[in-house]
């Protein structure tokens, strides 16, 4: 229990329409626990409830039923809400809409400024955060002149400067070009491996899930599959039935097997396939 970063118990969330007569059950009786230091990927196609789940994780939304605990704190507890948001930082999809200030370093400082950190320590945290995401040389730049991947890294630095133990990323690569996506994925890996942050990464790109410790697949507000990337992606047919893809290499291996070539089921990377062949 103590090592759970985020724990969700019998969690349900319902959206109400304005008239109050139409309800949409976005999350349906979900139990999840995220361990400290874990790299968890949540997959699911549009409307599967994954973004709602993310917002429930740091108290931006409160559950209709059930409870969410972040590091032992219940998100229903109003007094703890700021502690919860300091513990579980959140990065959103559109980098443009989460950058507040007109200079990169001012924006990174926004979080710690809100926390009331003394100016000298803010300076230290800003420099550290920008170094981790490799954006130090841009610290005096205006955000609108940066590329999408760079903007998203600034947004991640903004969260890092708050020193959260856990970072929730809600489709951080959905609006980026392929180069930007690679930049962000490398940054996320670095955060998990070197900075020991717990990562909850929500996405619908299968290729990004390969590096995770554990994958959850959501469908209509429920967890339908759970396991390591190898366990999940070896069940090619089941994943496809859920309207999702498997990584390209895994797919290729699957097709090869169908044609009678003997390759293992759980191929995840190009190197593995090369070796097997």
């Amino acid at each position, binding site marked *: 229990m103590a090592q759970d970063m985020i724990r969700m118990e019998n969690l349900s969330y319902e959206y109400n329409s304005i008239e109050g007569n139409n309800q949409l059950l976005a999350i349906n009786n979900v139990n999840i626990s995220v361990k400290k230091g874990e790299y968890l990927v949540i997959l699911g196609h549009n409307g599967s409830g994954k973004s709602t789940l993310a917002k429930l994780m740091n108290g931006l939304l409160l559950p209709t039923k059930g409870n969410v605990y972040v590091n032992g704190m219940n998100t229903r507890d109003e007094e703890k809400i700021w502690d919860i948001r300091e513990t579980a930082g959140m990065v959103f999809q559109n980098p443009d809409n989460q950058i507040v*200030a007109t200079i990169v370093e001012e924006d990174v400082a926004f979080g710690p*400024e*809100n926390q009331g950190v003394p100016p000298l320590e803010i300076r230290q945290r800003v420099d550290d955060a920008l170094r981790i995401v490799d954006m130090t040389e841009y610290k005096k730049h205006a*955000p*609108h002149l940066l590329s999408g991947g760079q903007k998203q890294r600034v947004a991640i630095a903004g969260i890092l400067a708050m020193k959260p133990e856990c970072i929730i990323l809600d489709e951080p690569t959905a609006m980026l070009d392929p180069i930007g996506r690679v930049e962000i994925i490398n940054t996320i890996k670095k955060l998990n491996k070197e900075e020991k942050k717990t990562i909850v990464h929500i996405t619908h790109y299968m290729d990004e899930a390969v590096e995770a410790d554990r994958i959850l697949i959501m469908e209509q507000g429920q967890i339908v599959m759970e396991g390591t990337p190898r366990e999940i992606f070896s069940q090619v047919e089941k994943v496809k039935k859920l309207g999702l893809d498997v990584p390209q290499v895994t797919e290729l291996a699957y097709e090869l097997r169908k044609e009678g070539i003997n390759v293992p089921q759980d191929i995840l990377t190009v190197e593995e396939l090369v070796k097997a062949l």
Partner: protein
Amino acid sequence: MLKDITIGQYFPGDTFVHKLDPRIKILIIIMFITSLFFIDSFFPYIFILGFILFSIKISDIPLKFVLKGLKPLALIISITFIINVFFTKGEVLFKIGPLSITKEGLSQATFMALRLIFLITGTSLLTLTTSPISLTDGIEKLLSPFKKIGLPAHELAMMMTIALRFIPTLLEETDKIMKAQMARGADFESGNVINRAKNLVPLLVPLFINAFRRADELAIAMEARCYRGGENRTRLNELKLNKQDILAISIMGIFFGFIVSTRYI
């Protein structure tokens, strides 16, 4: 078209003027504007001109750049000039049809036009030498004593920062929507004024909808980053007054005091 506006633009530099505390600069500009309206003869204009030229010189801004800021306001300046020339009564110099130009009119017109020119160049010096961030910081700090009577100083400053942050983003978006609509046959350039205004509707509707969506997302992102208003908030770069700031404001105080006093001598 939208990129030519120099008013409110920042001209980066590392001079004495750039480094002055924004609060001091704002106060100096307020003194400058007040004294400008106290002047009632041509003589003190020499000092004002001297002050402006001196400030431009020590802040390393090309004179051309400052004068460019006058361009969009040239029309207002000329209208002021013309109205004053023709509608001031006094000793007639010469007549054109029903209109007459008087000696007093000519002097009054020059006087008013100069006042406008000084007003514009003086205030644009403030924005040219102060980055938007420190300007809003300065305004927030200067207004903070009025918090007691319910003035939301922090909120105003935050709104200004966000507005400044989103100006380039929204301009880019306008451009994108415009091109998308033009690709589908929209026409923004021909027709009379009313037709043109009507044609702007397909541009404005998506722009506003997007702006509202952005505002919503930004608010959630700010909350996720623990934003809870101005209380207990610290700053990365705290404003601090040093000796130079005190010196600058004292000298300027005396200077503008002198200019105001010329009215009563």
